[in-house]
């Protein structure tokens, strides 16, 4: 009877979007002040509408961020979870009379604390419970994804199950009966394809209904196997009244049996010695219970999906099967990976470089125009504005095509699901340095920007792998550094620019491999870390998700150009004109000249080149900004790269590019390294790269000039 009472509510809210649902969702942006610290309503919300707080949870690779992004639009309030550096995203959606505050929880496979993410999710549910939680699951990977649902059911929060990527299920030949799933779970279920904006409004309506009238009675929950009930009862009795009251006792008992490290620590700290001894005895006697508990959740999943999922027969070849025949093949897969890298590189050169040159030329023309327009200004002011700010920032913004293109390629590879294949293919090579395939992912990301790459090392479970990978990531040539090469190489090397640039990247990768081999021997080995990684099913990227990825990444680059690089350009201009107003006798020249003996070993006797390298610490693209400032006063109609090339022998130009590729991490990367691994390793990283870059610079210049190149 209960079931039948539940059904109509489901139909109205989840399966017939045309019914009782506002025609359009209107997106509102929250500013920083719009939030109260803890779970309240935004301070500025109108009195007419109530704000309903809904969290979005899900395992990785279920398209959770696409769901959140599609619901909230481009502008979200992004911060960090209190005390953690994990990204916290919030957005407001106006839905009929109500304002929904959506909170994007970090993607986690389970709620056992392996890392900060799991802890965030469960602390949030315990201490600031939202009015409903949307759990996103993948249609084609339903069984495994329901594991998180099984865990979330232990909390006293109304759940809505959002079955996403229905299109992937169709392309994999997986058939789903969502009515049966909803009946079996006793939870509202909504179908969607978030990448195509399908089913989102129905999902919101469904979540809202669930938040208003949660129905707990029908819900099917995983229960402990009968043989574990006594031990859970004993644990509950032991913990009752002795631990902070926010924790549901049965859940806590289960998590202790599962061996959750943080909760065990919390419980142990709260117990008196006698109770502690009893706890340890109980946990020790039931050491293997975790397998039954986890197994029990999968038993429940099998039960609720029994009549739901119809998979194709094993001999039917799906899209993922077909692509993986090549992409995960030991030989073909490697070839595919190399081809992808090669094509990416070629695209950047073929398409982006001409645009970069055009924009850089435009900047110089603009500077010339500005010079006549601002002729009436005091010399120092127009100098600062034109030679400092305009030349510096303009040159950096000229890189934009390289960034956009690279992030587009990266976005496609990520969205399609290729990244994990690259990690799978590279696993055997990474083993040579005592790492496994997963370490390849942050390194791969490093081609975009080293900061997310350093953050990406969090997917590695053990400290040794993390530290080793963190030391290697800042050596990966990021778009900014590749951009500097793309900008200068044509003037330095003429028709051989593309080839030499490619060889420079190959050299860079070899340096990374060598350093990996050396570090792999120096840093003490432990038991090899476990390699367990999900390979998401392939799906077609959509223009919208791709545009969002590119925008999200490019925006931070533009913001950097508008803030740090703007300041640095002004600073470089000031230092190159103080105290006398003449660059040749400025503070910067003095510093640069001090380094000339070292520089001349690399053919870089010109203080301006050394200064450009030094200021690349601010941001790698600042190399160009600095050259722009320092060369600004010279010939007005010669392009900057040609001006620089005229100062350098080809061997010195080569050495310059090598050094700037391998030079110390930029400020943003360094602070990320410090945050992730501590000052000690961050310093090691700086010293290592200082030694490597200068060493390689000297070697390349000496060899190149000996063989007559230059």
């Amino acid at each position, binding site marked *: 009877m209960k079931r039948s009472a539940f059904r109509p509510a489901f139909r109205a809210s989840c399966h017939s979007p045309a019914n009782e649902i506002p025609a359009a969702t209107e997106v509102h942006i929250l500013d920083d002040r719009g939030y109260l610290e803890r779970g309240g309503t935004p301070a500025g919300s109108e009195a007419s509408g109530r704000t309903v707080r809904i969290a979005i949870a899900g395992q990785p690779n279920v398209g959770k961020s696409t769901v959140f992004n599609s619901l909230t639009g481009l502008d979200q309030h992004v911060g960090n979870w209190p005390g953690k550096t994990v990204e916290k995203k919030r957005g407001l959606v106006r839905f009929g009379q109500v304002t929904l505050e959506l909170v994007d929880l970090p993607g986690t*496979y*389970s709620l*056992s604390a*392996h890392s900060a993410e799991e802890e965030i999710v469960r602390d949030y549910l315990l201490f600031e419970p939202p009015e409903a939680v949307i759990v996103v699951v993948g249609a*084609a*990977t*339903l*069984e*495994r*994804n329901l*594991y998180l649902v099984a865990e979330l059911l232990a909390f006293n929060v109304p759940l809505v199950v959002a079955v996403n990527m229905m299109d992937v299920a169709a392309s994999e030949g*997986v058939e789903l009966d969502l009515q049966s799933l909803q009946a079996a779970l006793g939870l509202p279920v909504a179908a969607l394809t978030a990448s195509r904006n399908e089913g989102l409004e129905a999902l919101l309506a469904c979540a809202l209904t669930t938040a208003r009238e949660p129905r707990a009675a029908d819900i099917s929950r995983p229960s402990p196997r009968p043989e574990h009930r006594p031990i859970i009862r004993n644990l509950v009795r032991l913990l009752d009244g002795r631990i902070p009251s926010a924790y549901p006792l049965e859940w806590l008992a289960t998590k202790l049996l*599962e*061996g959750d490290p943080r909760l065990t620590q919390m419980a142990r700290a709260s117990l008196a010695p006698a109770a502690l001894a009893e706890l340890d005895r109980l946990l020790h006697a039931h*050491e293997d219970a*975790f*397998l039954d508990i*986890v*197994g029990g959740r*999968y038993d429940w*999943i099998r039960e609720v999906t029994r009549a739901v*999922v119809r*998979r194709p027969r*094993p001999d039917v070849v799906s899209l*993922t099967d077909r692509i*993986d025949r090549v992409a*995960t093949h*030991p030989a073909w897969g490697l070839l595919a990976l190399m081809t992808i890298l090669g094509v990416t590189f070629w695209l950047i050169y073929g398409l982006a470089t001409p645009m970069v040159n055009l924009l850089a030329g435009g900047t110089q023309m603009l500077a010339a125009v500005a010079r006549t327009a601002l002729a009436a200004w005091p010399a120092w002011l127009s100098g600062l504005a034109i030679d400092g700010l305009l030349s510096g920032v303009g040159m950096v913004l000229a890189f934009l095509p390289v960034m956009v293109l690279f992030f587009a390629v990266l976005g496609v590879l990520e969205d399609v699901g290729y990244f*994990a294949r690259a*990690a*799978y293919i590279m*696993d*055997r090579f990474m083993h040579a340095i005592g790492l*496994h*395939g997963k370490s390849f992912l942050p390194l791969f990301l490093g081609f975009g920007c080293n900061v997310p790459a350093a953050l990406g090392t969090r997917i590695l*479970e053990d400290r040794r792998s993390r530290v080793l990978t963190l030391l290697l990531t800042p050596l990966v040539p990021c778009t900014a550094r590749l951009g500097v090469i793309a900008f200068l190489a044509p003037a330095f090397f003429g028709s051989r620019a593309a080839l030499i640039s490619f060889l420079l990247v190959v050299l860079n990768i070899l340096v990374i491999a060598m350093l990996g081999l050396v570090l792999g021997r120096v840093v003490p080995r432990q*038991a*090899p870390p*476990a*390699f*367990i*990684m*999900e*390979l*998401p*099913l392939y799906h077609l990227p959509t223009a919208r998700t791709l545009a969002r990825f590119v925008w999200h990444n490019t925006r931070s680059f533009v913001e950097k150009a508008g803030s740090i690089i703007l300041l640095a350009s002004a600073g470089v201009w000031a230092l190159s004109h103080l105290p006398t107003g003449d660059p040749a006798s400025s503070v910067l020249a003095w510093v640069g000249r001090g380094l000339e003996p070292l520089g001349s070993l690399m053919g870089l006797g010109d203080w301006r080149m050394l200064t450009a390298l030094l200021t690349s610490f601010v941001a790698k693209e600042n190399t160009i900004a600095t050259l722009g400032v320092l060369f600004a006063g010279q010939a007005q109609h010669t392009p900057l790269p040609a001006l620089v090339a005229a100062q350098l022998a080809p061997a010195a130009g080569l050495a310059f590019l090598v050094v700037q590729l391998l030079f110390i991490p930029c400020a943003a990367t360094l602070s990320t390294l410090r945050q992730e691994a501590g000052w000690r390793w961050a310093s090691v990283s700086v010293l290592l790269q200082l030694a490597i870059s200068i060493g390689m610079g000297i070697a390349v210049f000496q060899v190149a000039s000996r063989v007559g190149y230059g």
Partner: protein
Amino acid sequence: MTPPRASAETVLSQVAVGQTVLVLGLQGGRAVSERLAEFGLVPSARVSVLRNSSHGPLLVAVQGSRLALGRGEAAKVRVVVEPAKAGHE
């Protein structure tokens, strides 16, 4: 689940490509076992081996998802070759 014949028992890293097996249990360290279990390699789960060359990681299908699994980890999963169709499913 009917008890399988002991003779067919092996570890996942020994299973040939294309075969489907049932998980019997996990051996080895607690931390790795926990992660394997979370990803669905629990007793009585059905696992298909998609890739398994003489060295390098395996590729398996389990609980509707695909997993890359190091050889060492795969060697910790005790499995039995699935007995001929017992009628259900």
